[in-house]
């Protein structure tokens, strides 16, 4: 594990694009997880109110709800992490350094493990980062305090970690299939944030579809399955029933996709001639 990680480290540590993207991602995480109170302040200044409640007293940073809230928001920018994976894999493909690596003496399997180790490490770092940010924000704003609250609902961090890994593995697969990094980035970005959400929303909500199997089928779409892992938490502040745990069904579907991505990567790379 250390060995394959060091290989990736040697490849990227002097690569400026990697550092720029990483810093942008971490900055985006800070903004998206810590900007909630500023957002509520802004709502207040705009004169918004929630059934007569002052928006700034909405307890979005209370333990343990904070974990679901922040991880939910953080999943929106996982696409930035995927960009790093795409660029890293794409470099090896376009510069043919994957071939050089193999000539130098690693197997294709080891190569895949090195990229996966890289993905897992990035996922771990962003999860840790979110934990620290959540802990800081919670210490500042939370109305409740105590071990039993702070460390409750930690499963959202675990699931976030898992979701990032699956999503980045998808990015790995795509950049093996499509060799143009720019194209993969645009395609993945549009698909994740626009195409699939629009399609699944139509399938679930359009009157034409709601009678048939479409809403059920939509749950099996690759991005929908990931999005289902951490449900939209904010309904709870308008007294709606929300999914406040990790649904087993979504977890199973997402795992199915994960296995599919991994086996495709192994299959493709094993068959491919690296000319």
């Amino acid at each position, binding site marked *: 594990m250390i*060995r394959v990680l*060091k*290989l990736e480290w*040697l*490849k990227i540590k*002097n*690569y*400026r694009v990697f550092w720029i993207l990483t810093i942008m991602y971490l900055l985006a995480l800070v903004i998206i997880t810590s900007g909630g109170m500023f957002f509520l302040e802004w709502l207040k200044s705009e004169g918004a109110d929630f059934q007569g409640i002052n928006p700034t007293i909405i307890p979005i940073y209370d333990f343990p709800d904070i974990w679901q809230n922040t991880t939910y928001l953080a999943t929106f920018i996982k696409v930035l992490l995927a960009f790093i994976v795409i660029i890293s894999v794409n*470099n090896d493909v376009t*510069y*043919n*350094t994957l*071939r*050089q*690596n*193999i*000539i*130098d*003496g*690693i*197997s*294709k399997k*080891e190569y895949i493990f090195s990229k996966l180790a890289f993905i897992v490490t990035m996922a771990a770092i962003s999860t840790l980062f979110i934990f620290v940010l959540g802990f800081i924000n919670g210490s500042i704003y939370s109305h409740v305090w105590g071990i039993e609250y702070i460390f409750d609902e930690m499963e959202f961090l675990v699931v976030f970690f898992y979701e990032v890994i699956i999503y980045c593995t998808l990015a790995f697969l795509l950049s093996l299939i499509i060799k143009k990094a720019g194209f993969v980035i645009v395609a993945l970005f549009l698909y994740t944030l626009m195409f699939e959400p629009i399609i699944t929303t139509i399938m679930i909500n359009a009157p034409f579809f709601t009678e048939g199997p479409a809403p059920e089928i939509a749950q099996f779409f690759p991005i929908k399955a990931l999005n289902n892992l951490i449900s939209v938490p904010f309904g709870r502040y308008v007294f709606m029933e929300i999914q406040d745990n990790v649904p087993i069904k979504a977890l199973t579907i997402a795992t199915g996709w994960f296995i599919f991505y991994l086996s495709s990567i192994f299959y493709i790379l*094993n*068959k*491919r*001639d*690296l*000319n």
Partner: protein
Amino acid sequence: MEKILRINKLSKRFGKIQAVDQLELEVAAGQVFGILGPNGSGKTTTLGMILDVIAPTAGSFKWFDQDDTVEARKSIGAILETPCFYPYLSAVQNLRVSAHIKKCGTDNIEKVLKQVGLFDRKDDKFKTYSLGMKQRLSIAAALLSNPPVLILDEPTNGLDPEGIAEVRNLIKEIAASGKTIIMASHLLDEVQKVCSHFCVLRKGKKLHEGNVSETLGEINKIEIAANDTVKLESIIQGFPGTSSYLKNGSSFLVTIKDGANAANLNDYCFEQGITLKTLFTQRNSLEQEFLKILREHD
């Protein structure tokens, strides 16, 4: 002799093209083995397969008579066609990646960079290098772990005349140190100068395999004649560079040893008081042999 590589009925098909067809080859330790062939004859594909970057359609190969090709590859230094490195890393940083994969430590990096003449540019990014410098870096990467086996695919590709001479000398030095070299080239002159054994491929099939010095057996034959044939014969017998000779009417066909040449023979005859009236050198080149082999199989 210990076999470094055994190739057994190796074939590769790219769609309609049979790039390599039932190739059988054996390379023994210490050989400098040249793979010759016209463009598109399957040289690089063959090297790609034995390096595991191209999946064979059929057949097999074995390195060092062992099954683990991944481990075997760590004791092979290879360059394959175009040099492939990270453009945003310097020579040293790129070689660190190679060294890490080969598990050979980074101590050798400076040495190999000096060996290929890149030391002055070691901290410049790969993307700033000329083609010749890139080629030198890939040779440096191949030498990095001081491997017992080297695979060189068109090693002088893209180099200037000076670079070509340097790389050839480097190859000869490496070969002299007892390493096994497998080299693909379409430059026959190059193979003739550095290889001990060679094979000829065309359309993926092996047409010929042999020992370079045996194939070029008639190399350095000199036809001489003088008025005094009897005296000339005794002089030929006395000449230290004579390996054998053949009387051919009134002239002699002398096969001379390595290191001797026509001028030596001429000088020697002159010193012994005979003036040659005829002096022809006959030198078969691999080029002639190669063309002959190709013609024979047409």
